């Protein structure tokens, strides 16, 4: 296709007053050889947009560089069909954060126009991915408990075919054990209406239910998942679009608890789950002799929120204890019931339920470490009552109920790394970049045929990793969304909300994928990684580093990308040492050309240059924010946004330094347990790669200080100017890059 470059410079929003627009236009026409270059006092107005449209229609312009505001705004205005659009940010990141009408400011704007044009020239229009197989929009729900049933019903109501797999013979999950529940509006106990839900699912023609069944195998990717379901010795095959994982939880094993809590020392010390079973099967009695319960104590956080046992809060056991305490009171209003707690956690409207328990006459004792003592069939609890400062005894108890917590179904099973057959013959290469492996437990729930492992990678405590800060329901396997207690501990209300949320995500996934578009967070992106396989050395770096396990492997260890699983993070592109992975609108060469488009002043001009490779999701908006707040930052920097810092290919650093640019600053998201990286591993991987480059730099007698990595969050804009100045000062100290002028 014939391409025709057109550059548009907006002079509104203060741009025209701060820059020499004529000189800037000259850069476009002379340096970038743009046949068309226009400016407009208000490019985003109807008139401005019409100007562009006219050029598209009449002049055949189809590669458009729009030098105006940040690409984070007005993206809907500057959208033109069948045209490559490159946004050059001369507003937030030039005129709003630099001295007006200054030589340095002008140079910065000119560089950005050159860089934008360089990138635009290399960009191609992406064509949506269409797999050979037919694409399915059906939704698989794994787990037939409250969350799974609700998700199935919600998806079916929205018009999608659903397959539901439950491992037990009956639907219902844990809630089958629950006779009364506590949920909105948290005023009273309500009878569990689970049966209605089960019936609704069973009678829904859009839902195919498998009970007593398990998922034996899942291969493929979103919209092309091939699922084998085993039931009664036979196997059913389904072609599915997306998956909701609602596999639920198991109670924490009370045998592991501290002996102080008395579990096992007396049959009258039970767990909240055992209480639930006892209540549902009849009356609450003293387990040792089936006599009525006159005095009972509930000990909260049994082994919970304790790093030695279950480090987190299961969030429902406070409600459960209140409910069960009220149940005892309703059975016998004269019974004495105590709740011993560390902190009572009944947030929001749940407070009303705590009030109800108070009204019922339940006595609350705040104590961090109660002790249970057994005397025959009677129990005594000793507790430090923090509210009176006394050590108190709750004597003559018939029943002690321990609030044990929830362990997600995904937390069971061996570590995949340990069970994986070792590939013995391969020797570790000296230069190999070691990437920490993900925690994947073989919990036998999804049985994915993914090279990285058969289940969802976990983050902590066996919960599937989800980037919980920003994207609930997400997992690190595209098209698989977690809901209910497998995702995090939650009560009935939470599970219902979760189920609807995950079903919604699954629907979004099948809709986007069938259009060939990416899902969250690059929702709608039509590009996908393309591999120039002839040059592949089977190094496996891409298959290992893809945070979403999108790349499988054939028998010869060639990568087998599964584009519908891909999130378009381009981490693989950064990982590949042969540089054979690229996107139509994002490639190593494009960024390389942008770097090369920067003009590097001679050494004696004393104008060092710094390239900032900034994560598009956090660091780039933080830089925009500096401009929005009209703060000022160093004039030597040139910012290049990256999809993810994980797409950093080391060659860019070589390009930069060999061009005589004095330093490279990588701005990525926080990584580690509290990571904020949108692509989970991206910033971590880039830092690991960087450690390698530093060794190489040292070898080349190029100071490794010229390259710096910093973790930055979107809210860190206040820190930015000082951070950049500091780096610039360090570069001045080191002296100019010796490659200048070569």
């Amino acid at each position, binding site marked *: 296709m014939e391409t025709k470059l057109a550059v548009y410079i907006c002079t509104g929003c203060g741009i025209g007053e701060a820059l020499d627009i004529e000189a800037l236009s000259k850069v476009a026409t002379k340096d970038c050889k743009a046949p068309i270059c226009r400016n407009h006092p208000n490019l985003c107005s109807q008139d401005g947009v019409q100007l562009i449209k006219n050029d598209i229609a009449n002049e055949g312009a189809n590669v458009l560089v729009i030098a105006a505001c940040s690409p984070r705004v007005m993206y809907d205005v500057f959208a033109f069909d069948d045209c490559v659009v490159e946004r050059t940010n001369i507003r937030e990141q030039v005129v709003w954060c630099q001295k007006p009408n200054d030589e340095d400011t002008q140079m910065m704007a000119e560089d950005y126009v050159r860089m934008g044009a360089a990138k635009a020239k290399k960009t191609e229009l992406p064509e949506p991915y269409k797999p050979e197989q037919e694409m399915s929009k059906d939704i698989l729900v794994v787990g037939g408990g409250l969350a799974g049933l609700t998700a199935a019903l919600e998806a079916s109501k929205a018009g999608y075919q659903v397959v539901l797999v439950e491992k037990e013979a009956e639907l219902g999950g844990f809630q089958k054990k629950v006779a009364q529940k506590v949920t909105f509006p948290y005023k009273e106990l309500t009878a569990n209406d689970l049966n209605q839900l089960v019936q609704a699912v069973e009678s829904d023609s859009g839902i195919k239910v498998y009970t007593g069944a398990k998922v034996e195998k899942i291969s493929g990717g979103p919209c092309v998942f091939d699922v084998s379901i085993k039931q009664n010795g036979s196997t059913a095959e389904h072609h599915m679009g997306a998956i909701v994982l609602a596999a639920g939880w198991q109670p924490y094993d009370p045998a592991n608890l501290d002996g102080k809590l008395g579990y096992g020392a007396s049959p009258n010390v039970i767990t909240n789950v055992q209480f639930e079973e006892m209540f549902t099967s009849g009356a609450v009695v003293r387990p040792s002799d089936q006599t009525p319960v006159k005095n009972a104590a509930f000990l909260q956080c049994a082994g919970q929120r304790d790093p030695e046992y279950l480090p987190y809060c299961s969030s429902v056991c406070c409600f459960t204890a209140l409910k069960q305490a009220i149940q005892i009171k309703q059975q016998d209003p004269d019974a004495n019931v105590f709740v011993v707690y560390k902190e009572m956690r009944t947030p929001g409207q749940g407070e009303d339920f705590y009030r109800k328990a108070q009204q019922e006459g339940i006595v609350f004792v*705040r104590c961090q470490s109660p002790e249970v003592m057994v005397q025959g069939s009677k129990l005594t609890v000793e507790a430090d009552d923090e509210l009176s400062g006394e050590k108190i005894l709750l004597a003559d108890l018939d029943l002690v109920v321990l609030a044990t917590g929830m362990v997600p179904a995904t937390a069971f099973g061996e570590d995949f790394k340990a069970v994986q057959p070792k590939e013995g013959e391969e020797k570790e290469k000296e230069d190999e970049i070691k990437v920490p492996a993900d925690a994947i437990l073989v919990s036998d729930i999804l049985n994915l045929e993914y090279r990285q492992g058969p289940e969802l990678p976990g983050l902590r405590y066996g919960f599937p990793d989800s980037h919980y800060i920003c994207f609930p329901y997400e997992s690190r396997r595209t098209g698989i969304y977690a809901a209910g207690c497998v995702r995090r501990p939650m009560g009935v209300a939470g599970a219902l909300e979760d189920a609807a949320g995950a079903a919604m995500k699954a629907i979004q996934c099948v809709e986007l994928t069938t259009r060939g578009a990416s899902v969250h967070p690059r929702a709608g992106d039509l590009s996908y990684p393309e591999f120039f396989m002839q040059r592949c050395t089977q190094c496996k770096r891409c298959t290992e580093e893809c945070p979403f396990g999108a790349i499988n492997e054939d028998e010869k260890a060639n990568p087998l990308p599964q584009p519908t699983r891909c999130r378009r993070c381009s981490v693989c592109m950064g990982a590949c040492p042969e540089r054979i992975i690229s996107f139509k609108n994002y490639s190593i060469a494009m960024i390389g050309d942008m770097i090369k488009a920067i003009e590097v002043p001679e050494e004696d001009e004393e104008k060092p240059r710094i390239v900032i490779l900034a994560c598009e999701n956090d660091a780039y908006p933080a830089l925009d924010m500096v401009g929005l707040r009209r703060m000022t930052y160093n004039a030597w920097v040139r910012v290049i946004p990256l999809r993810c810092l994980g797409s950093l290919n080391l060659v860019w650093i070589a390009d930069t330094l060999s061009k005589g640019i004095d330093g490279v600053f990588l701005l990525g998201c926080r990584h580690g347990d509290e990571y904020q990286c949108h692509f989970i591993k991206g910033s971590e991987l880039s830092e690991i790669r960087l450690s390698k480059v530093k060794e190489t730099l040292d070898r080349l007698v190029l100071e490794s200080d010229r390259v710096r990595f910093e973790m930055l969050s979107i809210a860190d804009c206040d820190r930015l100017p000082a951070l950049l100045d500091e780096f610039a000062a360090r570069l001045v100290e080191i002296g100019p890059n010796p490659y200048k002028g070569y």
Partner: protein
Amino acid sequence: MSVKVDPNVMKDLEAFGLKDAKKCYHCGNCTAICPLSTPENQFPRKFVRYIQLGQKDKILQSPEPWLCYYCGDCSLKCPRGADPGETMMVTRRYLTSLYDWTGFARKFYTSERFEIMAISIVALLVGIGLLVFNTGKPDWQHASLNSLWPKENIELADLGMAAVLSFLLLSNVFRCFRFVMGDLAYKVPFKYYMDQAKELILHTVTQKRFNECTDRKQWLVHLLIMTGYSSVFLLVVVFLRWFQRDQEIYSIWHPVRLVGYYATFAIMYGTTYAIIGRLRKSKPPYKNSHPTDWMFLILLQLTTMTGIFIHFTRLLDWPFATYFLYVIHMMVAIPMLVLEVPFAKWAHLAYRPVVLYLLKVKAQYQQEQPAEASVAVAA
């Protein structure tokens, strides 16, 4: 030492009027807002907790309930509607019953029926007594009480009653003293008890502490009822021979007459204010009314009203009406004195100043025995 939790105390206290203490979640706002709570003597939250945990002994040894004058600020500020002020009131009722060794007080507080029965029986006895024991020679010409019930005789009966009442009250006060002082009771040198005696008098007379509360009106009403009641009590028990007179009516400026008028006005004003307040539940202290509260106000107002009527019938010189009203008057006044003073609400008249006084004694002792006090704390 760990103490056993007794959940029955809470249930027991419901009979004493405990209602909302369960709602407390121990934020401590009440203690923070209370103008009378001090770091050494904190209340009311602590007592809500003692009650929730059934710490009877702790309550028994505590002086704090008597430091509270029930201004109700805490109840207004409580975010949970736990009415801590009322809980303090309940604690005082409970303490009154615990101090009382006869067990009468407990019955009085926990059974409305018992209360009414007891009052009726005493009233009846008084009525019969007055009908049986008299001179039998009433003066039908003039209203002359002394002709039927000579003041010497009444005075004698008065003194007898005073002796019994004093014995009962003092024995209960003594128990209160033992509970509050604990081990210190006899350790503190007698000198300190003497030194602080003036405090006792000061507090009794002025109710000074109550004045620290933000609602000054309550202090005034309380002071009026208290002084009115006390002065009339003195008139009828100690100064009866100057009070119950028939012939020459004192001139309007005569001290006895003035005191009488003051007392009448003070009691009528105070009780009417309180009754209206309780009916309208106008402020926290009036929101919850225990049967004993009503009984106290009704008896006091009835006594005063019949007293006023007698005053007028005497001035009008109507013999029959005077004698009749006198019997009624006595039938109301005597039960009130006999039952309320040692066993019910009136007892606080003694406990409150005594406990304040004991606290001062304790404080002085601890201040002047620093070494010994710190040893005691360490132990």
